[in-house]
């Protein structure tokens, strides 16, 4: 017996072991550095403290991962999920939700309280100043709150992505997918854009001190998720002579990916190629948010709400963008007498771009689950969802009559799909909201679910009420 329980009773809420505690303490040091600089403290030696912060994020996560999974066999690791306060909407979960939400509110609307340009002559202080050395290294200028956000975001996806890989190491779909998620975030969303900015292909100032503008150089951040792609300043920046030929390349690529690339790839493999493989929002949800996937609502009422809201956001972004394009090509600021910024862009940016995707989408992870934005709000998910539902080769196949209705698939579906409702009838799962994370298939104890691409014919599987295993009769025959 390698593992002997020395406690006096069976433990329900498993206490942390020593290694886990060490990992948690290292992680708390990172959180502590963020909180005290957020609180206003400006370090003298930001290089040292930033190095410490980033090291603590990585080392803390890795040590915690070792403590959690070392000595455990490869397999499903959901023991105690609903016994822990953190992952079952307990006090710790709520506290985490409040802190995340507060961070987003400051990030979007009060960056000066994070230290952005709040010092003498617009210098950074506190948390933003902490990231100045890294920003200087990449592009020779002080950090913005968005640089802070991007750096932390990437560090969290990498560190908790490693934890995810170890947790799901029995499943090569999960391992492969998560490596791609990490690489996409690190290179496409973070390093390449920062390096391009450093090479003055973006976010640059010319010799006379004239700012040349900024455009998004994350090649996968596509309209309509990147809702300001067609905004005047974004279009102008992509066409700025100093940024060529890269700027125009991004302009053409962005339109191609939205109009041609996305529908074609989604037809062949479903929206998962984006949502759970390369998307940044999806990347955070799959890694940092993995602990909260069981909190999504599986109620029919939630599904009904979802179908309205996500499609309305898609309509909203389309109208807003049409107004924007009208303004851009007609060289006007108003449409039907309405100011395009005040009546279209600003409401979308505030309600959807910031409040929905950031504050609710991530802030509420520990309360509503990790895919609130992706499920209810993301117009890109809405767009691909329509393709996935009506014209795609992707489906989750149900394996004949093997379902035992246990509910693991539904419980761990981050998108709140009641997977079991289909599986127990022998039907395949064809749903616009499925992001193809594959966790339903992973947690199924009977090998019932498989994500696969195949002919559209027969895609819905068994359509009769009788599941496999009775050859005595067929209904309606």
């Amino acid at each position, binding site marked *: 017996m390698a593992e002997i329980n020395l406690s006096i009773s069976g433990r329900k809420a498993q206490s942390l072991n020593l290694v886990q505690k060490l990992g948690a303490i290292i992680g708390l040091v990172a959180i502590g550095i963020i909180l005290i600089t957020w609180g206003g403290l400006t370090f003298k030696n930001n290089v040292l403290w930033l190095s410490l912060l980033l090291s603590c994020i990585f080392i803390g996560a890795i040590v915690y991962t070792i403590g959690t999974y070392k000595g455990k066999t490869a397999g499903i690791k*959901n*023991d105690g999920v609903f016994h822990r306060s953190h992952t079952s909407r307990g006090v710790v979960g709520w506290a985490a939700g409040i802190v995340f939400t507060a961070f987003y509110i400051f990030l979007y609307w009060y960056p000066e309280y994070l230290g952005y340009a709040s010092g003498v002559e617009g210098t950074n202080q506190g948390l933003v100043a902490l990231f100045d050395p890294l920003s200087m290294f990449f592009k020779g200028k002080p950090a913005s709150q968005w640089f802070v956000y991007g750096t932390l975001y990437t560090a969290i996806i990498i560190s908790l992505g490693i934890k995810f890989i170890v947790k799901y190491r029995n499943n090569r779909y999960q391992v492969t997918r998560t490596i791609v998620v990490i690489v996409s975030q690190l290179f496409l969303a973070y390093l390449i854009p920062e390096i391009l900015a450093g090479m003055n292909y973006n976010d640059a100032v010319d010799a006379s001190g004239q700012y040349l503008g900024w455009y998004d150089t994350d090649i996968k951040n596509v309209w309509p998720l990147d809702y300001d792609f067609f905004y005047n300043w974004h279009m102008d920046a992509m066409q700025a002579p100093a940024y060529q030929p890269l700027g125009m390349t991004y302009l053409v690529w962005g339109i191609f990916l939205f109009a041609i690339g996305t529908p074609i790839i989604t037809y062949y493999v479903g929206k998962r190629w984006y949502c759970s493989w390369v998307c940044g929002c999806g990347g955070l949800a799959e890694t940092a948010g993995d602990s909260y996937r069981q909190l999504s609502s*599986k109620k029919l009422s939630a599904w009904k709400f979802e179908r309205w809201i996500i499609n309305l956001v898609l309509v909203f972004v389309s109208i807003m963008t049409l107004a924007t394009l009208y303004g851009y090509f007609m060289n006007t600021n108003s449409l039907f007498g309405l100011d395009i910024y005040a009546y279209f862009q600003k409401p979308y940016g505030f309600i959807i771009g910031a409040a929905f995707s950031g504050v609710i989408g991530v802030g509420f992870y520990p309360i509503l689950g990790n895919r609130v934005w992706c499920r209810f709000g993301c117009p890109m998910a809405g767009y691909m969802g329509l393709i996935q539902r009506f014209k795609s080769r992707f489906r989750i196949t149900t*394996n*004949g009559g093997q379902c035992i209705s*246990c509910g693991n698939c539904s*419980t761990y579906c981050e998108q709140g799909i009641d997977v079991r409702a289909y599986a127990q009838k022998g039907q395949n799962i064809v749903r616009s909201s499925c992001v193809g994370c*594959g966790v339903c298939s992973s947690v199924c104890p*009977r090998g019932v679910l498989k994500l*696969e691409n195949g002919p559209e014919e027969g895609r819905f599987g068994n359509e009769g009420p009788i599941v496999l295993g009775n050859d005595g009769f067929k209904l309606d025959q």
Partner: protein
Amino acid sequence: MDKIVIIGNGISGVTAARHIRKNSDQPILIISAETEHFFSRTALMYIYMGHMRFKDTKPYEDWFWEKNNIDLLFDFVQNIDVENKMLQMKSGAPVLYDKLILATGSKPNMFGWPGQELNGVQGLYSYQDLEKLEENTKITKEAVVVGGGLIGVELAEMLISRGINVTFLVREAQFWGNVLPEQEANLISDHLREHHVDLRLNEELDEIIDDGNGQVKQVKTKSGEYIDCQIVGLTVGVSPNIDFIRDSGVEVDRGVLVNEYLETNVQDIYAVGDCVQFKQAPAGRKAIEQVWYTGRIMGETVAQTILGKRTAYHPGPWFNSAKFFDIEYQTYGWVRPQFAANESDFFWKHPNGKMCIHVVWDNSTDEFIGINTFGIRLRHELFDQWLKNKASIQLVMSELKTANFDPEFYHHYEEDIVAKFNAHTGMSVAIKPKKWWQKLMTN
């Protein structure tokens, strides 16, 4: 319209109710004394381990029943008055029925061991058993689980998830010896030990010893060993739950006796699921078959009969599945623990010791008889078709790539399996490339 009353809200009774409702508006009442709403019994273990809450195990939201006009009654039936078509209830008023479906399930076996009535001794079948387990394991550090079957493994896994040390007494020389061939049994035994289960084969419970206060202190085994424990899990199979039916006039033996139409000896009374004993077992099957899937199929079948389309129970080719800690198991057709004279078999095992397949075929006709698979998922529909069509072992082996149901990006072993199969049998099966599986379906 006839009023249909169903006793028992498990998978069999609920499936019957749903299928009747799909095609008819007649009144339906489901009675249960276990829980107010249907839940998945197979998920009890996940509630205890914290993977799910009780409400997550309910396949239908609570509004489902009223919306579908299926009445529910949370009460216990004390006896059946077949003359007056009336049920005597424990707390409420008597219930009248026109047609009655008995779907009362099972109860854990207790074989009269000394001390089996002590606090801390329990089976694992019902929601109440789960509550009892939660209570019993508050003060538990060591457990003894008796019985080498599926519920025993589940209980061991549950207890270990709470850090309780488990000693597992298995009467047979190998784990699940009445179902699994030796190779598979050994693979699972190794895996149980990897999870720190103290597995004792060829060991039986002799008596359970009182601590002086009516609480379990230890067990004594047949070999004379004393093992300290605060809980004893008795998982030595289940029996039909039919005590209240015995004197009603409905004919019973070990279970409620039915014909192939699931009809009892009393007009308008039917039985489905675990509580059923067939007077004449379906071809190749047992008279009492307590499996989730057969319960569901019986529910589907009896619904047809009640709807006026008298339908015999034909469960189709045998299939089953389970999970032993980390290792999934599926089976299609028959792989019996001992092979008959006309049966040949081939066993393949991955060097990691956690995956294997075992195929059986008829050595005179080459007809495929069955397959066991551990750690590799296979497509039910294809095997169902191959079994119905009496496909040859050569056909099955050649299409293994298409029959695989593992997630994308998994390692595949079909080439190795078929190469070793050819070497073992002297056959020369050529493995075919993977194709879209529905292309192999003939209907």
